[in-house]
């Protein structure tokens, strides 16, 4: 039988298996080397970590753009990390959010003071009038604070329109209006409101956290509440209660919380914000209920109002009489005490 085995360079005979291996190494040497390298890369944790670190940032961006699964997957881990971090060192969290808390606290205090001043000024205005005395009696009977009785009788206002505006673009997300209100183009109004705010901020304010809160035009007031992603603007006719401001703030906070993703990704389609309408209508209706109650009371008073207005002089005379009577009583009491 002829000798078919392949000899190596030195002339020694090689077995069939070795022949195959040798042949393989001749033909597939570069691929074998690549495969060994790939195996090394897969099996070596350091190399794998190095390679993953090169693409992980882009991978997160790509995945996050597709759906919310990445955020959902990471949420428990992030919550645990945050909780542990705060437990370990609460100070760092306080230091981090302090720049935000400070302005928010100051604003809350300023709103509370404004409300107090409004209440106080009304109280002083009506302290010494005949109407004021009547309201004092009503306050005692109903056990409500005098300031509240005063406000109920005097404040009549109506929220005519509410705009929910995308903060960055100035485009209107939703708009509601009370009945029989002449409504201008909501898109134009919201854009102009945004432009006015930008103008005022650029021209008069150097602070980033300051914002326009009120606009006044005759009987109309526009109250503006700013959030990070949206602005809520209420057009009010009359003299609104400060509690309306709180209602607007809470409404905006809820919208910011529930629609934060929609606000971040807004590109002109306001359809996702349709479900906000009930909240905005609530702001409108809340004000009108108070309005209705005040109107009811003021309609009773209105028939007497004419008489009261013409009787202001009489009130003054009565007041002087009462004051004189009190002085006389004090003198008599003093005389009696001195005798005794």
């Amino acid at each position, binding site marked *: 039988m002829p000798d078919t085995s392949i000899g190596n360079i030195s002339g020694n005979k090689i077995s069939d298996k070795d022949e195959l291996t040798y042949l393989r190494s001749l033909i597939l040497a570069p691929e074998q080397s690549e495969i060994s390298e790939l195996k090394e890369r897969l099996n070596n944790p350091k190399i794998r970590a190095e390679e993953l670190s090169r693409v992980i940032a882009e991978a997160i961006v790509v995945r996050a753009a597709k759906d919310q699964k990445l955020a959902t997957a990471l949420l428990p881990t992030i919550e645990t990390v945050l909780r542990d971090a705060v437990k370990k060192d609460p100070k760092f969290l306080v230091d981090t959010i302090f720049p935000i808390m400070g302005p928010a606290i100051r604003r809350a205090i300023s709103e509370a003071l404004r409300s107090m001043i409004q209440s106080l000024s009304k109280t002083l205005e009506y302290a010494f009038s005949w109407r004021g005395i009547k309201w004092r009696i009503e306050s005692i009977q109903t056990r409500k604070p005098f300031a509240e009785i005063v406000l109920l009788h005097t404040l009549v206002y109506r929220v005519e329109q509410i705009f929910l505006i*995308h903060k*960055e*673009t*100035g*485009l*209107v997300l939703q708009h509601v209006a009370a009945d029989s209100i002449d409504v201008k*183009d909501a*898109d*134009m109004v919201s*854009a*102009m409101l945004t*432009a006015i705010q*930008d*103008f005022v*901020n*650029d021209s008069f304010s150097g602070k980033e956290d300051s914002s326009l809160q009120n606009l006044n035009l005759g009987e109309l007031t526009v109250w503006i509440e700013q959030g990070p992603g949206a602005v809520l603007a209420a057009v009010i006719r009359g003299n609104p209660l400060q509690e309306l401001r709180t209602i607007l703030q809470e409404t905006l906070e809820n919208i910011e919380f529930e629609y934060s993703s929609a606000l971040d990704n807004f*590109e*002109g*389609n*306001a359809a996702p914000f349709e479900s906000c309408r009930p909240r905005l209508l609530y702001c409108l209706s809340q004000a009108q209920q108070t309005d209705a109650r005040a109107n009811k009371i003021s309609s009773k008073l209105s028939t007497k109002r004419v008489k009261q207005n013409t009787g202001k002089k009489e009130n003054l005379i009565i007041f002087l009489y009462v004051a004189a009577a009190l002085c006389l009583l004090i003198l008599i009491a003093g005389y009696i005490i001195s005798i005794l």
Partner: protein
Amino acid sequence: MIQKKICMLGSFAVGKTSLVRRFVENMFSDKYLTTIGVKIEKKNVNINQENVSLVIWDIAGEDGFHHMKSSYLRGMSGYFLVVDKTRASTLDSAKDVRKKINEVYCDIPCILLFNKMDLTGQWDIEDSVIEELHHEGWDIVKTSAKTGLGVEEAFNRLATKMLEK
């Protein structure tokens, strides 16, 4: 309906307000009243069977980006750079604005408008310059707010680009 904010930018007296007025009201006036701050107009268009509400911010003309109130540009989906074909300096200003905007906003649709095409005897910018800009990648429309040339085309083209993005 989709809403889009677009801005009209460019030096003073290039015809920004006139272009907006021509587009929105189909009117033109020779009288020049400088825009102070910003004027806002709105027009609905139909692009590929989609209703789009264009909210147009006509911003007061400034020479250069550094004078411009950048807060007005926030959130814009596209913008026009308007150049007066009878004043070459307005083109330099437009280039400067585009460069600065690209640094901040990157890749927002923009169309360069060469306005006042009706003033044929007073052109200060050669057609070769416009060709060169076109080769550099600028999207250009020649317009005249007075005659209406290219106005509808410009706004429709910008709206299409914004929707495609």
